């Protein structure tokens, strides 16, 4: 209490703020770093397989739609795009206070296995995630074989 009366409201507010910032600094240590943070590959990619197809998920928020390209050559899936920096240098009066997000052109390639159906590829960009689905070759898909009874 003595401390409270000695220290003014402003000083106490400063200490409270310091405490909050230390807690938020701990957030970082207790979280999992994600893509886009400098030094890491952008964009992050998940790859999986279902019975029917291969599925590639590309985590790339806010990419310009016109720049986004998906192509397939020799079973290598190539994903390209661009994310513009937020600021033009000409723009007056605005500056970066903090900058962690990736900007610029990116490309990632994923090598798919041999037996795919190159004619059946779909790509869909929603909520900043590009989902590419490549159908497996019909010979690789599970088939149910009817059992005949004699």
């Amino acid at each position, binding site marked *: 209490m003595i401390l409270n009366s000695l220290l003014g409201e402003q000083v106490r507010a400063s200490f409270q703020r310091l405490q909050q910032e230390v807690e938020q600094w701990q*957030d970082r240590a207790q*979280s999992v770093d*994600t893509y886009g943070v400098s030094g890491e590959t952008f964009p992050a990619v*998940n790859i999986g*397989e279902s019975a029917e197809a291969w599925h590639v998920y590309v985590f790339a*928020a806010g990419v310009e739609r016109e720049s986004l390209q998906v192509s397939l050559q020799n079973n290598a899936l190539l994903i390209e795009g661009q994310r513009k920096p937020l600021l033009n240098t000409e723009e007056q*009066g605005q*500056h970066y206070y903090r900058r962690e997000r990736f900007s610029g052109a990116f490309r990632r390639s994923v090598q798919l296995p041999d037996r795919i159906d190159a004619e059946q590829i779909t790509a869909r960009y929603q909520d*900043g995630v590009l989902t590419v689905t490549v159908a497996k070759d019909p010979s690789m898909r599970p088939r149910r074989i009817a059992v005949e009874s004699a």
Partner: protein
Amino acid sequence: MSQLMTPANHFPMSPLYRTDAPLYPPIDVLEDSEGVTLMVDMPGVDADRLTVQVSDQVLTLEGHMALNLPEDLKPHYVAVDRTHYLRRFTLSEELDSEAIEAKMQEGLLAVRIPRKAKYKARQVPIQFE
């Protein structure tokens, strides 16, 4: 669902694989004389699964990914293995936490926080004689 995909090479002892640890989304902060703009990467999150709230000058940005994964999906390579994003900031006294605006577009969250009127830059007219 907090687990997005089980990592193929799983190290159970690593803190990275604590499934309750959130993702730490990268941000840009742009400042101008009228206020600040935060840009936050949260791919996979739509506006319905996003929370932006201020309490005691602490701004909390939280989102949950919703991806339509096939039921029988077998992971082969997993860079993102969880769905919960969380980031917190303490706002400066200069910022008006009552007037925050947030917009979510293609997984990119934009939060605009204006300065309180008394902290805004004012042009002082100069009289030339």
